[in-house]
């Protein structure tokens, strides 16, 4: 497991740094924007806009976790499939599910660290300038986008590990439809009731890549 983690780290470290840097920079940009509006128009205006016009000031990062999820999966699994390196992994004296599970766990941990840093950065700043209700509104709204980041990672992995192109296309359509559910509305907090079920579903979906690997191992071809 340690060796697999090290292998994945070697493969993804530059992406990890770039993704963390880009996402944190965009968060910083959003927060600077709040500071700039506060300086120009006053804090009362910022609060008023949030209270009356559904503004949350971090709309810019709406699709960032989603893109990071896709890229993380591509960086991690495309080389495995292109150079058929996955074959070596599957021939290791280690359970197939455990090997793929470890790789997925690594990716999830990587995303968790990036997303956690984003949230930490946002919460620390927002807590200073906004009341708890406004901070939780922003964070709960953004949580859906970050959850979409995990789901896009898992679904892209599912597509990448699939051995046949025909099935890949079907999986791609399913992935697009599933991810669409996470972006149906821009209104803050409208997913609150649905959120626990979305988290549960995202956890369950982590099992789908194992099926793709089984099909790969079974030698399924177009």
């Amino acid at each position, binding site marked *: 497991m340690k060796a697999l983690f090290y292998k994945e780290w070697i493969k993804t470290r530059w992406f990890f740094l770039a993704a963390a840097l880009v996402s944190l920079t965009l968060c910083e940009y959003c927060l600077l924007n709040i500071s700039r509006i506060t300086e120009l128009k006053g*804090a*009362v205006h910022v*609060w*008023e806009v*949030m*209270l*009356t016009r559904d503004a949350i000031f971090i709309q810019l990062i709406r699709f960032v976790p989603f893109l990071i999820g896709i890229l993380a999966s591509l960086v991690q699994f495309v080389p495995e499939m292109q150079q058929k390196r996955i074959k070596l992994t599957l021939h290791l004296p280690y359970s197939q*599910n455990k090997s793929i599970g470890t790789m997925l766990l690594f990716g999830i941990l990587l995303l968790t660290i990036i997303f956690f840093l984003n949230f930490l950065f946002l919460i620390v700043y927002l807590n*200073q*300038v*906004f*009341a708890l*209700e*406004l901070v939780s*509104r922003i964070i709960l709204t953004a949580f859906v986008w970050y959850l979409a980041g995990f789901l896009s990672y898992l679904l892209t992995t599912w597509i990448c590990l699939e051995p046949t192109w025909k099935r890949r296309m079907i999986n791609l359509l*399913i992935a697009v*439809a*599933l991810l669409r*559910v996470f972006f*149906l*509305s821009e*209104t*803050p*907090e*409208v*997913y*609150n*009731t*649905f959120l626990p*079920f979305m988290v549960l579903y995202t956890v*369950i*979906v982590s*099992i*789908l890549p*194992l*099926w793709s690997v*089984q099909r790969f191992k079974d030698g399924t071809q177009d």
Partner: protein
Amino acid sequence: MIRFSKIVFTITVTLLIIWILPWCYQFLTTTKTDTPFTLYSGVINDFAFIEHADKGLTYKDVKNQVYSEHEFDSILPLFFYRQLLSEERLPNRLFGVDLTPRLIQTENFNFRIDPNAVNTPSIGLYPLLESMSGRVDLEMPDDVFRLSERMEFIDIETNAINEFKTNVFTQMLQKKGFKFPAKSIAGNPTDRKEYDEGYLILDAEHNLFHVKQVKRRPYVRKIEIPKQVLVQHMFLTEFKNRKFLAFVSDSQQRFWVLETQTYTFKQVDIPSFDPACMSMSIIGNMFDWTIIVNDGKTKRYFAIDASNYHCIKSLTYEEPELTPMQKFGLYLFPIQLYFTEPTSPLIFPRWTLSWF
């Protein structure tokens, strides 16, 4: 593990099919449903409407009498008063009342209740404007309040609790018999209005209070609710004429007017109205109101006497019958899944079973 993957895949595909296919079918088979702009005319004592026809607009009443645009302005003098005024046709007197443009402007109002707004998650922070600042224009305050176990004011600049103001307002509320925490609150937190009436707040024991800020001091007034009325939704009006403090709906889906001067509840003579799933528009003048209630299937119009809130006339526009294609769609997709609906902004899976 692989079997479980297959089960997850099958369930996912099934759910996506019963979501996307009916949506696509509905998108392709939806027809435009247009109800004409309808208003009650006290002059003809009936509803009059403007229809979109091939040759432009046609002006009619329910007896199918056709009017010219010129005549139509005359039968709705309080709605088209600016047009009549520009043509010097505004009557000096109507139903025994001397008309002036200023009086008409003060008495006319438009009001809308949207279930989307009712179902939108509330933030729980409310600005309390100064309602007697001595200035003509209202100003947004530099603090907001939350209702927890007290009425807690937060200074916006410092994001810290203003303990002094919190204590002053909390003590006044408690002195007037308010029991924390509050069940619901209604107000119009904006400075783009003529005057401010603060908020109506339902306390933990379902008692209703009117709370506002007058010269930086709390104004709290307990409002007597009629027996067997359990207030559910409140809508502060703040109309120019200052006659009505709010519209209120109760647990039995009755609709009430809360009058400003006397704080008395007067029931409006309309059938059940549930703000959580029906929309309502009121176009009112000093003599009558046209209330439009839309439940998504039917659009009901009520002409209400403005002096006693009794129903004078009513009119119903039924939803047009489903087209054969739409009916076929119900059989084709007996189970439909959808995440959004017109009456609520909340994203959540909802089902319709059309065969049952």
